[in-house]
């Protein structure tokens, strides 16, 4: 009897120690990463770095075009993915018949979409958006001239939208699920249609979750490089992408290029570190804001289901 108690206590201690060690490991790795990047990148970090274009074969200057390109791409991606994702989630959760085969097919498709490797999205973007859609539009409207049938900001954004679609759908559905059934019933019992209920009761309460999902999608979109490799990113452009059929520079792609294709790797290293620092900072800020938004709005709606 006493040995069983003793064994229980040893088990407890072992669990605490092992989980604590794992946590510590994660923190250490993160710390090493961050410290290394900060050390290497803070030297070149300056206002000028953030607002100037790169010069002298990427060994000097700044990364402003890459920042601009990334932001432009992300904005277009968001405009594309949020309505589509939210609408899909609303359809799946509020309107679709749970047992119907079509609903199940849609769900399976969404789940599988989330697991597709991002490079495959890039190929999809190339084949479908650029060659098929872009090429088709070119044939129809531009008499065969290559206007849209080539890598462009718009196609890269749409490709990223497809990539991040599952994230938005799932996050939206999760937050729709948290809206208690009683609230929907109350609205319907007052003579509201389903649409009015979704618009006036469900969506307002699901907004924090939807926002969170959107921000997570954005942060993933800002960081993914593979899908934009052949759909619109460019190494160096003399101008900013003011038209949707322009190519653009991108922070993540810029890092890849600096690390592997720079003519003078050593000279480019400081810029590389700084670019990584900027990229990490952007991602970090986005994730943090998602967290803040979610906790602020959860606080506001506290007690809604009491």
């Amino acid at each position, binding site marked *: 009897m006493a040995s069983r108690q003793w064994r229980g206590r040893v088990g407890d201690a072992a669990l605490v120690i092992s989980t604590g060690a794992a946590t510590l490991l994660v923190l250490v790795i993160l710390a090493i990463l961050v410290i290394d990047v900060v050390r290497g990148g803070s030297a070149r970090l300056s206002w000028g770095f953030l607002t100037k274009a790169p010069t002298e074969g990427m060994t000097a200057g700044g990364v402003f075009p890459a920042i601009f390109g990334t932001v432009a791409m992300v904005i277009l991606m968001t405009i594309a993915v949020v309505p589509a994702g939210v609408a899909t989630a609303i359809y799946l959760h509020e309107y679709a018949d*749970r047992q119907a085969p079509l609903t199940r097919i849609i769900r399976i498709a969404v789940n599988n979409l989330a697991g597709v490797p991002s490079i495959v999205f890039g190929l999809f973007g190339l084949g479908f958006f650029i060659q098929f859609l872009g090429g088709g539009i070119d044939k129809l409207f531009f008499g065969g001239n290559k206007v849209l049938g080539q890598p462009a900001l718009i196609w890269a954004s749409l490709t990223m939208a497809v990539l991040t679609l599952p994230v938005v759908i799932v996050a939206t559905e999760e937050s729709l699920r948290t809206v208690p059934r009683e609230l929907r019933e109350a609205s319907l019992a007052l003579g*509201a249609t389903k649409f009015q209920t979704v618009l006036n009761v469900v969506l307002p309460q699901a907004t924090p979750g939807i926002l969170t999902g959107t921000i997570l999608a954005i942060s993933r979109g800002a960081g993914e490089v593979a899908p934009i490799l052949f759909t619109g990113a460019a190494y160096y452009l003399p101008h900013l992408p003011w038209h949707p059929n322009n190519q653009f520079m991108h922070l993540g792609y810029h890092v890849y290029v600096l690390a592997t294709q720079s003519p003078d790797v050593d000279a480019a290293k400081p810029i590389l570190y700084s670019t990584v620092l900027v990229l990490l900072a952007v991602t970090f800020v986005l994730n943090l804001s998602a967290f803040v938004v979610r906790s602020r709005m959860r606080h506001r*709606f506290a007690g*809604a289901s009491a």
Partner: protein
Amino acid sequence: MSTAAAADNARPKLTVKDLSVFYGQKKALGPVSMEIAEKRVTALIGPSGCGKSTFLRSLNRMNELIPACRMEGSVQLDDQPIYGPGTDAVMVRRRIGMVFQRSNPFPKSIFENVAYGLRIGGMGNGSDLSGRVERALRQAALWEEVKDRLTESALGMSGGQQQRLCIARALAVEPEVLLMDEPASALDPIATAHIEELINELSDGYTVVIVTHNMQQAARVSDYTAFFYMGDLVEVANTQVLFTKPSQSRTEDYITGRFG
């Protein structure tokens, strides 16, 4: 000791004929036929699972929200069927309101909660709207307590107040019938007493149907009581008669506590 059941001239507001409700293959209720008297309080009692809540929700087409729910028979409001081609669930629910077991105010302000039904009915801001909101809150005996904090969140109210708010919200659209599904079961005795008093006052202007598992509450509050058991309507009678001299032995056994 003779039952002073007045020759009640109340006409039927709702007429239910051979109503049966099925969930998939399983029959949950019926067939049930009864009349609900106008501007009276009718209580539905019976043990858990006897079908009284299912019956209540059939009266305002809320059962349709449950997939695989099928119904037979008819329900008529003032001689107009509420099911069938040419009927509209939304219109039915505007005339037959509902208050639920656990209060479910929207996470909006007190004013917006009460105004919700009116807004979705198309009413815009204005004196009409605020007038209706005030009247509903007065009817729910809540106006004096909240008139200075209409813009505050409804979630900050106590349980009893929230339930009265839900009643005000239902009353704001001026339904003809008010269905209440165990409205006081989650409340403490004092809040319950307030709700019961409210029901008494409401029966002057509304037809009230209330489901309750508390027999004493049914005895206190209702004019007519219907006893359901295992999906059947066993007996419906004037409340005083049912609680002093029920005609069915199953009713007698249930209300005296003789269930084995």
